[in-house]
């Protein structure tokens, strides 16, 4: 047990969980996590990501499916036998124990003697850059420091998997970035397979090697951050990760690489079919991100009327209403001549490049 440091793989194999009241919490989730990877479970609240984390940790016994860590099916093991380290959202430090005792708690449970425990706790506190806090109580530490202690405590048991439940949600913005870098550094040093549960897409995209997007208990997509952002497989992923414009249209022609879509707004564009090929003449929803639209001068693109221009610092966002009444946002990087546009001004819009739009079969 003592030498299972880092690098263990994690397989979530067809896991389904139903709450006692019959509600489906997660449905047929499959994840194949390589040893040493950082994975983010991303989704809105209530999507089942925390349930999945608690299943992996062993606090919830799933209705169906298996959890495999390394070569072991861990389903029969209670949480205290799984060697899974958890950092809770509120850190859950033991308020009556000193920082050193908190960090050494897992070692004490394994029967490690006090001197070794203290030495190991000190080593870990140095790792998380809190070497002088050993004798303090948790309430004497700031939020960021408490989180470092929670990390050290989880790492002390040399976990095969590290689970972080919304670890940065309680921190203010500047501290959050510092801690994200810190966690990533510690993860690289230790090489421990890590799962981060988060509803913050920036956090997921910046920290994780791969992102699993969940919605209503189902896995929408599992891929690299650029897969998820640039090649979303579902409409949900496209709208939840980043912001996007949804424009209705009809498929004129389609093959695997691209589809020609006639937008209701009035022009034809080339879009990437998100799921295989699209049926000719079928209705689709085309997603174009605000930063992928540009103003054009000639008769290209589609027409619209400026509703409002918002200078947001580095970018200027224009709200445009198209001929069919669809509201569209256009984001322009701000440089020299970029200016806000008069409300009511007529403009024409087109995508920056053809592959930047994604087409999904319309559900309604």
């Amino acid at each position: 047990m003592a030498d299972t440091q880092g690098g263990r793989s994690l397989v979530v194999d067809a896991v389904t969980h139903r709450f006692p009241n019959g509600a489906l919490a997660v449905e047929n989730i499959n994840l194949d996590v390589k040893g040493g990877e950082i994975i983010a479970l991303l989704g809105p609240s209530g999507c089942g990501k925390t349930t999945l984390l608690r299943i992996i940790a062993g606090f919830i016994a799933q209705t169906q499916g298996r959890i495999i860590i390394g070569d072991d099916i861990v389903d029969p093991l209670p949480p205290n036998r799984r060697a899974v380290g958890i950092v809770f959202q509120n850190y859950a430090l033991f308020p009556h124990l000193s920082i050193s005792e908190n960090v050494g708690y897992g070692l004490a449970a394994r029967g490690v003697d006090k001197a070794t425990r203290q030495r190991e706790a000190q080593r870990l506190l140095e790792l998380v850059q809190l070497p002088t806090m050993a004798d303090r109580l948790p309430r004497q530490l700031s939020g960021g420091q408490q989180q470092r202690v929670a990390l050290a405590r989880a790492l002390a048991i040399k976990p095969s998997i590290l689970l972080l439940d919304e670890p940065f949600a309680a921190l203010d913005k500047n501290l959050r970035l510092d801690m994200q870098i810190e966690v990533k550094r510690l993860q690289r040093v230790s090489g421990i397979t890590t799962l981060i549960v988060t509803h913050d897409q920036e956090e997921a995209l910046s920290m994780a090697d791969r992102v699993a997007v969940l919605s209503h208990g189902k896995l929408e997509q599992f891929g690299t951050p650029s897969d998820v952002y640039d090649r979303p497989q579902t409409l949900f992923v496209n709208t939840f990760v980043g912001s996007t414009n949804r424009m209705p249209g009809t498929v004129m022609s389609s093959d695997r690489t691209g589809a020609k879509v006639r937008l209701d707004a009035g022009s034809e564009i080339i879009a990437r079919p998100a799921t295989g090929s699209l049926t000719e003449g079928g209705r689709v929803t085309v997603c174009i991100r605000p930063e992928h639209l540009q103003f054009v001068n000639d008769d290209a693109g589609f027409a619209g009327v400026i509703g409002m221009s918002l200078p947001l610092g580095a970018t200027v966002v224009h709200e445009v209403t198209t001929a069919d009444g669809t509201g569209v946002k256009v984001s322009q990087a701000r440089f020299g001549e970029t200016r806000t546009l008069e409300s009511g001004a007529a403009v024409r819009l087109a995508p920056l490049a053809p592959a930047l739009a994604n087409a999904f079969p319309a559900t309604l």
Partner: protein
Amino acid sequence: MGAAPAARDVTSYGTGLAAPLALFFLAFFVAPLLQLFWLSLHNDTAGLHWGIGQYLQFLTDPFSLSVLGSTLLLGAAVTAVCLLLGFPIAWLYQRVGPRLQTVIILIVLLPLLTSVVVRTFAWIVILGRQGIINATLQSLGMIDTPLRLLYTQFGVVIALAQVQMPLMVLPLITALGRIDSNLEDASCSLGAGSWRTLWRIVLPLSLPGIIAGCTLTYAAAITAFITQSLIGGGQMLFMPMYLYQQASALQNWPFAAAISIIFLLAVLAVVSVFTALGRLSRGYGGA
């Protein structure tokens, strides 16, 4: 009641509103207590000679001291039984659904809703020579002669523990409810089993509730005149009955007053030990 000054601090309140209660306490608690103390400082029943003779008499009389000792021990035994039986109930309460919680609370509070005399007589029915326990054991053939349960220390402890149980369970439920459930999950995920989690996390963090419950139970148990007298019978003498005999039957008011003061101080001493333990627990784990 006059117009408030313009720059009044809105978070402070006048002490005037507390005056009625303060007067009430002054007239019906502090004054009688002082009178009691004054009374105890007389060497004779007529109240003519000053002195500390009553205190000396109590403290040099082995019988009086044994009554005090057995009363304090009775309190300790009842408190221990209440804690041992009450903690699992409170622990269970935090882990069941809302419907079962209602049932548990009802069962715990039920003793408070019946008269203490009725409850005590129920115990007489249960514990008596021909009582429910003896009748059951005899019909099962487990005993030949009835067990002596009534008029024993055991009987008094059991009956008092039942009567005082709410005073232990309610503070424990509150204290256990305040413990973040993530702490138990954290302990478990770090490799601790349920017993280690109970000893190292749940018990230390519920210490404020344990101390509050123990203090209340203890104070209530040693002063429970009716239950002590009815279940204890003539053979067992505790401080409240001793005091009653001296005051009512023997009309020895100065000695009864001295007993009261000594009893009061003894209880205060025990309660302050509990409180000191509580203060200690707040710095728990500093080592």
